[in-house]
C-alpha cells in the first residue's frame, strides 16, 4: 500500500457506470490507499444519480464534477477539468480504467499534473506496478519516482469488491467551469460488425496470422466443417490483412464469444484477443511456438504447424466417421 491521496476516475456511458470503474476502485483500495475518492464527470441532469450509484456500491466518497462540457465523453474536456480539479489537491495517485476512453486522456492528464504515467497495470508489488510488455512475453515491474502517478488499470485484472462494506459513501457535487473546446463530439455509432452467427455458434474455429496466407483459410473451414453449429472467428490481425471480414473479429474491439469449444489456430494470444473468448468452455490452441501466450489461456495446447496438423486431424476424424457423417 502506498498511502497517498488517491482518486479513481469513473467512466460511464448512457447513464451506466462501466464495470471497469469498480475493478479500478478495488485495485486502488488494495494497492494505493485505503480510502480513495471516486471522481465522476457528467452533465447536470445525470450527475446525481451516477454519483449516488457509485457511492452506494463502493462505499467511497464520490466527487461529481458537473458541467455541460462533460455531458458527453470528450478527452479535451475530461483532461482540462481533471487537471484543474487535481492541481488544487497536491500529490496524488489517479487510477483510471484502461479502456478505450481511459487511455484516451490518461497520458495528457499525467503531463498536466506532473505525474508519471503507467498504463495497462495488471498487478502490484511493494510500491511497484506490474504490466505486460513485449507482446505479452514478459512483464515489467515499474516504480513511480514521482509523488504523483496516473495509472490505467487493465480490465479483468482485479475483481470488484462485493458491495460497500461500510455503507454508502458521501457525495459532493462540484460545478465545472465552462470553456471553449476545439473538439466537437458527434455521438457514437453502433458496431457495424456484430455477428449473430458467431455468438450463437457452439464451436468457434478461429484463424490467426499464423495461417500465413488467405489460401490457408480453407484449412480452418475444413476443420470447422467437422463440427455441427460451428462458425469461423478471427483475430484483428487476420481482418486487417483482409483475409476475413471484420464481422469475424473476436476481441475487445470485435465480438465477444463464449462457445462450448474455441479452437485457436495460429493465434498468439494477445490480451485484446483473449478478452473476447476467454469465457469459452473448452479452449484448444494450435501454435508452432511453445511459448505463445495463448497456451496460458488454452485448456489443451498443441505445438504443431497448423498446415500439417489440421489436415491430419480432419483426415483422422473422417476415417473414423466416414465422410460427411458429422
Amino acid at each position, binding site marked *: 500500500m502506498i498511502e497517498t491521496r488517491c482518486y479513481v476516475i469513473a467512466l460511464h456511458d448512457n447513464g451506466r457506470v462501466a464495470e471497469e470503474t469498480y475493478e479500478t476502485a478495488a485495485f486502488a483500495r488494495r494497492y494505493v490507499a485505503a480510502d480513495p475518492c471516486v471522481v465522476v464527470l457528467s452533465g447536470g441532469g445525470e450527475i446525481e444519480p451516477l454519483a449516488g450509484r457509485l457511492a452506494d456500491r463502493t462505499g467511497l466518497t464520490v466527487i461529481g464534477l458537473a458541467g455541460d462540457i462533460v455531458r458527453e465523453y470528450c478527452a479535451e474536456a475530461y483532461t482540462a477539468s481533471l487537471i484543474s480539479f487535481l492541481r488544487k489537491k497536491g500529490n496524488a495517485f489517479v487510477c483510471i480504467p484502461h479502456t478505450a476512453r481511459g487511455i484516451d486522456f490518461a497520458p495528457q492528464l499525467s503531463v498536466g499534473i506532473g505525474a508519471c504515467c503507467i498504463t495497462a497495470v495488471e498487478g502490484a508489488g511493494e510500491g*511497484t506496478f506490474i504490466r505486460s510488455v513485449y507482446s505479452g512475453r514478459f512483464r515489467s515491474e515499474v516504480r513511480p519516482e514521482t509523488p504523483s502517478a496516473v495509472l490505467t488499470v487493465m480490465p479483468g485484472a482485479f475483481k470488484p469488491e462485493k458491495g460497500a462494506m461500510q455503507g454508502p459513501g458521501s457525495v459532493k457535487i462540484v460545478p465545472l467551469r465552462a470553456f471553449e473546446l476545439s473538439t466537437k463530439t458527434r455521438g457514437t455509432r453502433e458496431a457495424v460488425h456484430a455477428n449473430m452467427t458467431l455468438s450463437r455458434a457452439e464451436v468457434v474455429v478461429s484463424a490467426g496470422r499464423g495461417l500465413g496466407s488467405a489460401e490457408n483459410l480453407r484449412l480452418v473451414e475444413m476443420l470447422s466443417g467437422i463440427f455441427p453449429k460451428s462458425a469461423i472467428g478471427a483475430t484483428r490481425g487476420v481482418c486487417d490483412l483482409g483475409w476475413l471480414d471484420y464481422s469475424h473479429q473476436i476481441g475487445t*474491439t470485435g465480438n465477444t464469444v463464449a462457445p462450448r469449444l474455441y479452437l485457436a489456430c495460429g493465434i498468439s494470444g494477445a490480451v485484446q484477443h483473449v478478452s473476447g473468448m476467454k469465457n469459452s468452455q473448452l479452449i484448444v490452441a494450435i501454435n508452432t511456438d511453445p511459448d505463445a501466450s495463448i497456451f496460458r489461456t488454452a485448456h489443451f495446447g498443441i*505445438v504443431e504447424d497448423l498446415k500439417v496438423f489440421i489436415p491430419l*486431424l480432419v483426415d483422422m476424424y473422417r476415417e473414423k466417421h466416414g465422410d460427411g457423417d458429422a
Partner: protein
Amino acid sequence: MKILVCVKQVYDSPDTLVFNESSGRVEFGSHTVFRMNRYDEYAVEEALRIRERITGVAVDAVSVGPDRVRKTIRRALEMGADHGIHIRTGCETDLDPLERAHLIASLARGRRYDLILTGVMAEDDMQSQVGGLLAGILGFTCATGIISLEMHGNPREILLEREIEGGRRECLTLGFPCVLTIQSGINTPRYPSLSHVLRARSEELELIEAPSPAPSPPLLSVKRFLLPEEGEKGEIITGTPGEKAARLLSILREHSLL
C-alpha cells in the same frame, strides 16, 4: 499543412527475445530482426493519403533510437514520406514513453506541425502513451484509436471516428493542431514503389543527437522484468503428430463435441 508521423522500430517476432536471468533484463537475441511497428505503418499510410487528397501537404517521419532505427525511417520514405528525421539516442534499450515524447516534442516545437500521427500502440512496450504525452507537452488536442479520418478542401477541422469497445465508434471533430493515434484497419498500408525506394536511397536523413544525459530525470524506473504469471496452465498434448490428433479427437468426443 505539415504532418509529422512518429514511427517506432520494434522486433519482428517476440520469440527471438531472451530473458537474461542474471541481469533480470530482456535482451534482443542474435536472430532478432527489426521492422516498423505495425500500427505506425497505418499512420504513415494515412498521412500519405491526406497528402494525396489535399494540396500543399508535407509529411515528415521521425524515429527515436540507436542507429538501427534509420532503417525504419527509410521505410517511411520508401512508402512516400517527404523527409526523415532521426533523433539518435545512445542506448540500445527502450526509453520510457515520456522521455521519447519529450525528444519528439522538442523537435516538433520549432516546426509548426498541424497534425502529428502515431500508431495506437507500440507492439513492444504496449504503453499507448507517446501520442497523448506529446499532445500534453505541446498543448495540442488529441484523439486515440482513429479508425476513420476525413478532411476536405482547405480544412480547418478533421472528422474522426475512434474505435471503442465492441467495435463501437465515437464520432468527433477536431481542430488543428492535434495529435491522432491511428488504429489498424483504417487503411491498407502500401508497399513501397520502386521509384520511392530509389529516391529514399539517396535521401539524407536529418540527424539530431538526443542530449545525454536527458535534461529531466525519468519519472519512473523499471525495477526488473518477470516471466508471465504462471496461471492454471492447460495441458500441452505431447507425442507424434498422429498421437496428438488422436488424443484431441478423443477429448472432443469426451466433451460431446463430435
